[in-house]
């Protein structure tokens, strides 16, 4: 709602960025700009200032911590994540999700921090990172905090980030032996937002499922996990019956919208098949698994 030009700054440190954001109610973080610029062009947002995060070194790059977790800096592009060979096994779904976001030009532009902060439940990262069990690193005016990704998403386009807070990175738990994962996206055409997406990360041990996380995206205000349904799968061989009843619990827990990508009813019909496809995809190639 402002008159006059929009200001732009490129601070070199996270503290400077936070100071600039705190000084101006109408200021917004600018990461890759893949979504923000489109929203600016559509007249949906009118920030008074864009604070670019491009020059802040600590937001760049992917690193493995000594305990095996993978930390993806907030400014890491989708293209970079999609290429990273350390994201395999239990972490492969993060790479698969990144590789399926929109088109190459957008994957070169968009960043993981921006995508997570935007909290769009129909975009690819939120559901995939929930299934992966990621944590989000956040810089605030008074220090640093971390937030489980399940707690970060609050509503459509609404995250638990407070004004003046900036995501600095996403940390994915270390891959364990016997872990597999998959991200399955159903969209009208390649590169579109998902009509429904499913992320799964599971551990297979002693010929049975030892742990599993399933998140369904694009079917409600935030990606949906149903912990009871996940628990019901532990100890099973992830056979058709077990999957079918777990999938039904997901159908019951979601509340999709009608939009041009599909009606709510259509989305609900897609969920069971996509959960099955994701689980089978994750198990593929594991000896003894019923893939």
């Amino acid at each position: 709602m402002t008159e006059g030009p929009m200001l732009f700054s490129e601070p070199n440190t996270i503290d400077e960025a936070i100071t600039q954001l705190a000084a101006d109610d109408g200021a917004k973080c600018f990461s890759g700009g893949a979504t923000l610029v489109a929203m600016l062009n559509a007249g949906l947002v009118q920030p008074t200032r864009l604070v670019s995060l491009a020059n802040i070194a600590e937001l760049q790059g992917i690193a493995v911590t000594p305990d095996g977790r993978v930390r993806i800096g907030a400014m890491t592009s989708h293209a970079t994540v999609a290429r990273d060979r350390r994201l395999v096994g239990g972490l492969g779904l993060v790479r698969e999700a990144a590789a399926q976001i929109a088109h190459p030009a957008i994957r070169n532009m968009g960043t993981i921090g921006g995508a997570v902060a935007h909290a769009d439940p129909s975009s690819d990262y939120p559901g995939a990172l929930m299934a992966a069990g990621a944590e989000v690193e956040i810089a605030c005016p008074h220090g640093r905090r971390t937030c489980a990704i399940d707690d970060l998403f609050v509503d459509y386009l609404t995250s638990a980030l407070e004004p003046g807070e900036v995501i600095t990175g996403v940390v994915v738990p270390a891959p364990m032996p016997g872990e597999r994962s998959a991200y399955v996206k159903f969209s009208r055409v390649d590169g579109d937002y998902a009509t429904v997406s499913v992320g799964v990360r599971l551990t297979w041990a002693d010929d049975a499922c030892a742990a599993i996380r399933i998140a369904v995206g694009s079917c409600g205000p935030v990606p949906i996990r149903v912990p009871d349904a996940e628990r019901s799968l532990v100890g099973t061989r992830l056979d058709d019956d077990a999957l079918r009843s777990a999938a039904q619990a997901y159908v019951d827990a979601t509340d999709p919208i009608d939009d041009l990508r599909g009606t709510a009813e259509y989305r609900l019909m897609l969920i069971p098949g996509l959960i099955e496809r994701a689980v089978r995809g994750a198990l593929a190639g594991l000896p003894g698994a019923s893939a």
Partner: protein
Amino acid sequence: VKIVDEFTVTAPLARTWSVIRDPQKAASCVPGCRSVETIDESHYRAVVEVSLGPIRTKFNLVVTVVEERPPDFAATMTKGEEGGRASSVSVMTKLSLTSAGPDATLIAYESDVTMVGRLGNYGLGLMKKRAQTLGREFVANLQRRLDAELATAAADGG
């Protein structure tokens, strides 16, 4: 977009009607309503703020009561636009009240929403869900308002 919903409040029909038909009281229950002014018996001006994540806006609305059958039916036409005329909205609403016992009233409504401009382009599916959320907040606010009125009435010996 059509929005059809119904809900029950714990209050007698007559009192529920009196709150809904009082512009100041009703406006205080509308999420994001910043002001309301009475033009005449059947026309009101209101300012309502709405937000969806980073998208924030303020609508200047004129509400016209096109039909009214006290104490259980009203039809309203709401028209308005954002500052800068980036989007305009018109909403035709039919509201009916049914007594569901001495202390319960069923409120059913049907709204036909037309949105043109930047917000209309953004996605009506999402707007519809947002409207349903706002509807639920309205119900919660209305119930609180009715509870407060009943408590006051009881304290007054009425």
